[in-house]
């Protein structure tokens, strides 16, 4: 419960501390996540964040639901699940058509290994991740976003995620 409180407090503090010239962004995106480990199925992916824009830089805090990857055709159900809160620094590269973003983040990733409904492994560690995104303005304050996220060697497998979503800027 306390970590949710800290996360919300930080987000609210960021909102209140925004100077008049700065912007705040709310992002939400969904998609699919794909482990590199063979024999495992892909899963749905979700990403929600709050960003604080300073020029071409964005400081972002959010939550990643990376997914639960189930072993295909296993006689006993087996899966690895990952999710976690994150902090991220993003460099924005505006162009005339779209804005490109390259972000480096760290997520406090909670990983669970399950076999036959039993949790065999549980680990929470800070892990780095990389994100490449492209945004396109729809109307003032509303953007569409497409993104690619990469987690390297998470419990034996790299994980890639493709997502689309919306961004509200105010």
């Amino acid at each position, binding site marked *: 419960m306390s970590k949710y409180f800290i996360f919300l407090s930080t987000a609210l503090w960021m909102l209140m501390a925004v100077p008049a010239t700065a912007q705040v962004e709310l992002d939400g995106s969904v998609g699919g996540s794909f482990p590199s*480990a063979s024999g495992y199925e892909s899963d749905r992916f979700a990403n929600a964040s709050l960003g604080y824009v300073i020029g071409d830089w964005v400081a972002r805090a959010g939550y990643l639901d990376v997914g639960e990857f189930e072993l295909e055709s*296993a006689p006993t159900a087996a899966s690895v699940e990952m999710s976690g809160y994150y902090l991220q620094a993003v460099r924005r590269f505006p162009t005339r058509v779209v804005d490109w973003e390259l972000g480096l983040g760290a997520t406090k990733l909670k990983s669970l290994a399950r076999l036959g409904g039993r949790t*065999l492994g549980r680990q929470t560690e800070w892990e780095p991740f990389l994100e490449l995104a492209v945004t396109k303005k729809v109307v003032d304050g509303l953007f569409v976003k497409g993104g690619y996220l990469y987690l390297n060697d998470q*419990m034996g497998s790299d994980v890639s995620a493709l997502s689309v979503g919306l961004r509200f800027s105010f």
Partner: protein
Amino acid sequence: MLGLIRSAGKAALCLVLAGLLYACGGGSDSVVSSQSLPTGEIEATIEVHADPEQGSAHASVQLLRPPASRDDDYYDGDDYVELGDGDDLWFTTGVNLREEVLGSDWFEALSELTHSQRLLEGDYRYRRSYIFSGLVPERVYYNGHLDNVPDGARYTVSLLRDGAAEALESTVVMPRAFQLLSPLANQTLSRSSDPVQLEWLPVEEGVTIEVDVTTTCTNNSDYQYRTSVDDDSGSLQIEAGAIDDERLLGTCDTTLTLVKLRAGQLDSAYAGGSISARQVQAVTFTTVD
């Protein structure tokens, strides 16, 4: 009117039969959940059967709450135990699931564990029938199989429980696969005058030999002969006439099934029961009067 009398007669007959059953102490079996039951009040019957042709092994487990009294006069049915949430049975050739270590590559480790660890699933009917089995048909039991098992493997069946004592180490070593050399499938023997000579290889210490000979004839008559010996000498002779019966006529099919059985070590957390492993070979040959 006649119908009414008949119905009344049937009802009276049912009442008399029910009364007789009650007087004999005949009760009905029931199913109880494991959730309110300490492991020390559960008896386990665990049987592991090898399938050497498939290279697999099949585990069957029946759990029972023993009656307060074993007095046959007051027998009131058995309580079969159905596993509730947080309780499950696992079958493995490796270490029990609690001792498994995933290491740094969870994906690979889980992939391997699905081959070496099997969650046993509940069922009410046998998918297979085994001779010399101590399992009660049509009662809840748990089963599952492992593929690509080595010959003579050591098997562990574990009861994992959340919030109750666990029974992790019920173990048994499977007798090695063997070949039945005699009798041969194309052999014809006289049921009344020929002894049945059994020979097999290899022999093994610590196993019991159980033999079932079932003869079925074209006139739908059948006869079953069973015997067992405590040591594995590689041969056994069934005396002439032992597999014969006056109902059997003419040329019949006789199936001889030889079971090598080894008893294992049941986890002491259980109230009682047994664990055993069985290696089976069968041959069908022709018999005449």
